[in-house]
């Protein structure tokens, strides 16, 4: 799809989603596109069956948008992975799947339905969030929409980021994060003292971004988008995840870190996370079928305690420690760094930090943000 905004080939609308303003708004942007109202679960299953029986169900699903209502909970703890130190993050499942097509993407395996889903019952979301925040009003909450889909990839159709920002602004104990790989920041409103709103980008070495992140803009465009967002008044975060080993990875990762701090002032960065490439064995088969030319899944991977294939510990550690070193070298030692889905030994040896649990991580990440915005 290139780095241009996403438009589906076809839209399906759950009958129950018809009367919602968000449905109307999205369809207003998709005038003239083939659409079908899905009257029953049976019809839905028939459509899904047709998608799944195609040669590339994941790729086929990316061309289809499905508007429906969230019948379960929108807000959940980030699933993380067993036997690691988490970070206490919460996710809002407002849209599922992603129009970008990254080789390593877990969503190819993780989500049962291959199409892009947007839940349109926003009133239920606000109501649920009110209750959730009331229940947790004494603790720091970090929450975001970019876990099971890209936070901004559909924003030109949904306009949700502006609504979410409007909802979360001023919620004193909450930090809301929009996480993306796109450069589609046009719908983010300019804000004064956004404080608890963070827009973050997933970054990678130029080679990985170019070869393994199909549909995502080059890293430099992501950084330019981040700079524009900083100018709009936001603070930003960055996620180097997944870090991938390849010949020359050190040079390339140092280069992207150097560029990052050339473009973005370190004082605007609220956190930076690092995670090494990992995937369940079942995803490897999907990647082999969908991206036969990729080399990134052939390395010294072992089966980790969480059942995922991971780089053998010293290789992983070298990768994480090196990139953490580049961040400190080019950005200084003040930016909070955390690891995604790693155990205590890797935290200790990679970041020279032994957090006692996810609360400790959360407590380290949050005060910096609020400390700068008490007005």
């Amino acid at each position, binding site marked *: 799809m290139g780095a241009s905004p996403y438009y589906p080939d076809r839209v399906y609308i759950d009958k129950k989603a018809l009367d919602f303003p968000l449905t109307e708004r999205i369809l207003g942007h998709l005038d003239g596109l083939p659409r079908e109202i899905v009257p029953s679960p049976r019809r839905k299953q028939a459509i899904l069956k047709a998608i799944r*029986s195609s040669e590339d169900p994941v790729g086929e699903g990316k061309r289809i948008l499905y508007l429906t209502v969230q019948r379960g909970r929108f807000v959940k703890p980030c699933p993380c992975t067993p036997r690691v130190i988490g970070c206490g993050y919460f996710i809002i499942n407002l849209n599922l799947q992603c129009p970008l097509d990254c080789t390593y993407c877990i969503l190819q395996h993780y989500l049962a339905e291959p199409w892009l889903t947007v839940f349109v019952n926003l009133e239920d979301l606000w109501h649920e969030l009110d209750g959730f925040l009331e229940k947790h009003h004494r603790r720091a909450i970090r929450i975001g929409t970019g876990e099971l889909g890209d936070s901004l990839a559909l924003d030109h159709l949904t306009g949700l980021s502006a609504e979410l920002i409007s909802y979360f602004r001023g919620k004193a104990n909450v930090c809301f994060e929009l996480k993306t790989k796109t450069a589609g920041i046009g719908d983010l409103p300019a804000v004064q003292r956004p404080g608890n709103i963070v827009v973050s980008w997933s970054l990678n070495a130029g080679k990985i971004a170019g070869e393994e992140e199909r549909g995502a803009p080059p890293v430099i465009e992501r950084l330019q988008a981040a700079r524009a967002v900083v100018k709009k008044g936001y603070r930003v975060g960055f996620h180097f995840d997944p870090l991938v*080993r*390849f*010949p*020359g*990875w*050190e040079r390339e990762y140092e280069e992207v870190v150097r560029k990052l701090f050339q473009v973005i002032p370190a004082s605007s960065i609220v956190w930076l996370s690092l995670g090494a490439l990992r995937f369940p064995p079942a995803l490897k088969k999907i990647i082999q079928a969908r991206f036969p030319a990729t*080399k990134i899944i*052939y*390395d*010294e991977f*072992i*089966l*980790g*305690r969480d059942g995922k294939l991971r780089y*053998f*510990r*010293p*290789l992983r550690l*070298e990768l994480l420690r090196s990139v953490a070193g580049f961040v400190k070298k080019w950005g200084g030692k003040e930016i909070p760094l955390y690891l995604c889905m790693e*155990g*205590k*030994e890797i935290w200790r040896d990679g970041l020279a930090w032994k957090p006692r649990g996810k609360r400790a991580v959360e407590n380290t990440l949050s005060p910096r943000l609020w400390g700068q915005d008490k007005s």
Partner: protein
Amino acid sequence: MKNIFEPKQLNLHELDLEDTRFRISEFFSSDRLALSIKKIGLLYPLLVTLRKGRFVLVSGWKRLSACLKLGISRAPALILDEPDDLKAFLFGLYENLAGREFPLLEKAEIVARLDAFGMAGSKIMKDILPLLQIPPTAFYLDSFLSISRLDPIAKKAIAAKNLPFPIARMLAEFQTEDLEKIIPLLLPLGQNKQREVLEDLLEISKRKNIFPRHILETPGIRAVLQCSKWPPVQKSERVRLALRRERFPHLTAWEESFQSALRELGWPKGISLEPAPYFETDDMEASFRFKGEKEFQARLRQLLDVSSRQEFQKIFARPRLTTKGREKA
């Protein structure tokens, strides 16, 4: 007149043995069947049909083979009047289905013939795979089709060693030139090790972008294969270890370093010391069996003794990565 079976004493010379369009069994022994026919005669007639004026065998290749072995020139046959190959094949399939289990290769041939005769993949999945005790999914359909296309050298090995589906499916990922080198290496090993060797070859070949046969031609492995003092099983085992070292260079270095430290320390026999799987954590596990208080205390004394030695620290030391390895990533 459709699908009428006309019984007949068929002169076997009337059969067009070159026409194997319905044949699903290739690698079998008909010795026992020949013995049975010799003793009591052929009880179940062959199933044949006419194509271009000649009889073509639909079902009964083992029976035919046994008859020919015994020098029998006439045998009972049912003549199927069915000009459509797919329908004729299904007759043969259902006839066999009632009487026996199909081995892996025959299942693969059945799937391939149905595919060649024009049955839709979705219909094969839905109607046929369950009959063959195969899960009805596209993965299995594709896998069995791949197995049917395997080179005869691999098929012979599968039949001879009764290799299971996962290994047959992996063999289908190799080219004939690879299989010629791999099969002799594989046969002396047990199934778990066969699988490990195939996985390692595929991984290394993809990582390095070279053919698996070229991995087996590297000097270290070639030296093992050419060595005359080791029997085949030892050669295969050594190649397996060499491949593992190639695929997991850092892990095997850590494992070897750990074992070497235990040897240097003189770790007591009867007490096992295991690092965490793949050294993922710093935890280790020491365990031993004992029969009474004295034996228990003796083991503890042994543990205290080894842990007080200076060399004990070496079991916690790990080899460092090299910059060279980093660039190689």
